[in-house]
């Protein structure tokens, strides 16, 4: 049942990314390009998502457990440590260079674009490197 839930939510997520055009790096770089022809689409996507998750999360987290598991799996770190900020900065640079973040890059695989395939392979390699770096 958990696997079915993962499939349905993953599919909704990928459909939403496509509908919001976040799968298109031109839209993403347009949002980051505040000195050029600024594109607000990413802000609407973020706003649309938060309009659901802000109240939705608050309601769900009143429960003691999710429907299909014994506990919630939430991040436990609370400190502003260096890896958080340095990691976010490195991610931001990569995001600005390519116009892809992880979700849209995975969704973009559906189009078979060779650029997206190269990006995703490099992204997985980058995660692996960071895993070795932090251990």
């Amino acid at each position, binding site marked *: 049942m958990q*696997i079915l839930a*993962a499939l*349905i*939510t*993953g599919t*909704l*997520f*990928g459909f*939403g*990314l*496509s*509908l*919001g055009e976040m799968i298109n*790096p*031109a839209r993403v*770089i*347009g949002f980051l*390009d505040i000195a050029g*022809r600024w594109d607000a689409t*990413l*802000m609407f*996507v*973020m706003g*649309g*998502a*938060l309009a659901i*998750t802000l109240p*939705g*999360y*608050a309601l769900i987290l009143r429960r003691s457990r999710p429907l*299909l598991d014994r*506990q919630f799996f*939430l991040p436990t770190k609370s*400190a502003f440590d260096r*890896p958080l*900020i340095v*990691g*976010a*900065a*490195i*991610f*931001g640079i*990569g995001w*600005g*260079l390519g*116009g892809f*973040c*992880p*979700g849209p890059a995975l969704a973009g695989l*559906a*189009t078979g674009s060779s*650029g997206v395939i*190269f990006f*995703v392979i490099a*992204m997985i390699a*980058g*995660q*692996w490197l*960071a895993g070795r*770096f932090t251990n």
Partner: protein
Amino acid sequence: MAEANFIGGIIGGALIGVAAVLLLLFNGRIAGISGILDGVFSDNSFAERIWRGVFVGGIICGAAFYSLIFGAPSIQIQTNTPILIVAGLFVGFGTRLGSGCTSGHGVCGLARRSPRSLAATATFIVFGVLTVFLVRHLSL
């Protein structure tokens, strides 16, 4: 200003929000894509790897469904392949080191009112803006 896609953005964003809410409600998990993807390949139990792999497969299916209904979405890549590979390495490295990306910190973390996620989101947006400024307007 470029012409923004308001309707697609709001509805697409809302669908992403619904997906994140349902994943938390049913499986108790945060819909952070970088973390989910990372967990497919890292040292995890079979059950962990399976749901994560299926979720990633679902994202690809979702985009494929979109193509079936509305036609292939446009992907206008803004740079060349070597830069795209460097970008991928940075995105993978940074999201793993910083424990999240646009979805985990941006959509889910902000919804949990996590100060760490707010700091991370502000940081990656600022660095994204600076990078685009340097590349586009100073032609570095």
